[in-house]
């Protein structure tokens, strides 16, 4: 921090990737591909659990894309979870094969986001947060009024019983993993693109970014629609994983609580943080969910505590000390002259 600008050109070079990130990127990709083999070697319970974990990851990555990169804290992403799940129900009722319906429902949720964007993107900060929540509540009320969609009592996904249970779990698992990898790939692409820098400028100071000529509107729109797609997919997959939904639970604000927890604990605005946060949340959920209210109090305190005292999350601890990065999504300075004791300094 204290180094003057004068010595930078001589000793430092701006780099995107290093040997470390190249190795870790390749390892991550290999791990992602290897995960497709899980249904061949593990029990159905494990497959279903991992599906749940991947859905959490999708949600965390999407919420982080909105808040961590776009600076938009949404308390209403459950609108897209619900629309994804109920669009799946609607499509299967109209003779669309269930897994195709899951994919189409995610697209439908993205379209819903396109429609809502002009309305909600007018709002900023807390107004956007509560405004998006109102949309989710409105959709929940509308769905509860529709008897064909099961009304307030909920509805089962039919059509999947055509598959043997193990096969069904495997298919759901593969689709979930594929969508997760697709979304992660999209986020990496976004961050490596010029847009990524612009996005982080918006997050840091939207007005300043706009004053510097960053066109914030299209970028925020893109993220909003991406998050609509991802959360819609997560809702449809939750339905495919559990086979039954109720409007008050799939449209419930607890989803936002989970997303905020995962992203804040893992590290908001980082690529790796939400994934780490999702894994931690998944483990906590396994261990403590039975404690109900006490567990939720703990989640609330931890999330608020991270926001106040460790705003960049757990990932920042190894990342800052070891300059650890799994993917080449940032810029950093590297000394041109290798010195044994030299530490790289992040910009």
């Amino acid at each position, binding site marked *: 921090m204290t180094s003057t600008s004068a010595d930078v050109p001589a000793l430092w070079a701006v780099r995107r990737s290093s040997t470390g990130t190249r190795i870790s990127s390749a390892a991550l990709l290999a791990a992602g591909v290897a995960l497709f083999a899980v249904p061949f070697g593990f029990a159905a319970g494990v497959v279903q659990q991992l599906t749940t974990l991947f859905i959490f990851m999708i949600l965390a990555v999407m919420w982080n894309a909105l*808040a961590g990169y776009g*600076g938009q*804290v949404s*308390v209403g992403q459950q609108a897209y979870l619900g629309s994804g799940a109920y669009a799946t129900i609607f499509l299967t009722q109209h003779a669309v094969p269930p897994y195709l319906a899951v994919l189409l429902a995610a697209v439908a949720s993205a379209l819903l986001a396109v429609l809502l964007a002009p*309305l909600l993107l*007018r*709002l*900023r*900060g*807390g*107004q956007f*947060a*509560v*405004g998006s*929540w*109102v*949309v989710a*509540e*409105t959709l929940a*009320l*509308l769905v*509860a*009024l529709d008897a064909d969609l099961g009304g307030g009592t909920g509805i089962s996904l039919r059509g999947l019983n055509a598959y043997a249970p193990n096969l069904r779990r495997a298919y759901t698992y593969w689709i979930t993993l594929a969508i997760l990898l697709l979304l992660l790939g999209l986020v990496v692409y976004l961050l490596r693109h010029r847009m990524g820098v612009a996005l982080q400028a918006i997050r840091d100071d939207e007005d300043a970014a706009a004053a510097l000529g960053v066109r914030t509107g299209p970028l925020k729109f893109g993220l909003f629609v991406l998050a609509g797609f991802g959360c819609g997919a997560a809702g449809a997959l939750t339905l495919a994983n559990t086979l039954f939904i109720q409007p008050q639970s799939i449209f419930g*604000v607890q989803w*936002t*609580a989970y997303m*905020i927890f995962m992203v*804040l604990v893992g590290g908001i605005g980082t690529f790796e943080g939400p994934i780490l946060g999702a894994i931690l949340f998944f483990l906590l959920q396994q261990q403590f969910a039975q404690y*109900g*209210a*006490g567990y*939720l*109090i703990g*989640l*609330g*305190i931890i*999330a*608020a*505590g991270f*926001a*106040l005292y460790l*705003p960049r999350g757990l990932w920042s601890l190894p990342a800052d000390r070891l300059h650890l990065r799994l993917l080449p999504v940032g810029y950093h300075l590297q000394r041109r002259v290798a010195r044994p004791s030299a530490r790289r300094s992040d910009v």
Partner: protein
Amino acid sequence: MNWINAVVQGLLLGGLYALFACGLSLLFGVMRIINLAHGDIAVLGAFLVWSITTRANVSPLLGLALALPVMLALGYALQYTVLARSLRGGTLTPLLVTFGLSIVIQNGLLQAYSPDVRSLGGSAGTLSTGSWHLTAQLSIPYLGVLTLATAVLMLGGLQLCLRHTGWGREMRATALDSDTAALVGVPASAVYARATAIAVGVATVAGTFLAVHSTFDPSSGPTQLIFAFEAVVIGGLGSLWGTLTGGIVLGVAQTIGATIDPQYSILAGHLDFLGILASPRGRSLITRSTT
């Protein structure tokens, strides 16, 4: 006649929403934050009043009078312990922190009081049940009138204080430019603490009126936050009289919706809010508030 009744009841219900909206509007105006725990704080206040009322066997209004000092102190503490730190963390941090607080309060109440639905209507006697029967169709409940009158007094009184008292001027000056306020000797944190205490106090009043008016349980907070927010946006952010109008518009929309079909009540309020947001007026409301 049915419609006139709906409008009158909506007007009175609007008083309740304006009370809920008052504190949210004040904190947004002074500190530029939306307190996502606002509804839960109101419900916490309602539970405190409920405890006092049932333990001491007094009227809810006396219970409210006893609970208010506690809640005001809680408001001060909230600013100095949590909000002050979150304000230093940038624009997103207060949202995330108050959302966490909302979850903690809801589940804390759930632990302490169980999920049972409660009401203070029973202990309020004729106040909650009595009404003036004007015609066979139209009656005006005492409670509705008292709620609306309280809302007018609170919002009007707050408006007058902001305009004409020393601490009101400090609050307006800090809202406009807290750094410069510090340069003339006004500590922003003290002003914010006062604003938070007032917001929590008015929320407690709102929560008590809700509890007398209908029922409440530990998870009632978010709905009240949403209604309060809708009232604030409909009425135009940053204006306390606008907040009163917004509350009334929301109340009337809900009672008219309910007259068509009880299921449409809350939905009609949401659609009214979204409609106003979509209108050209909505755009101007928002841009004015973000400058």
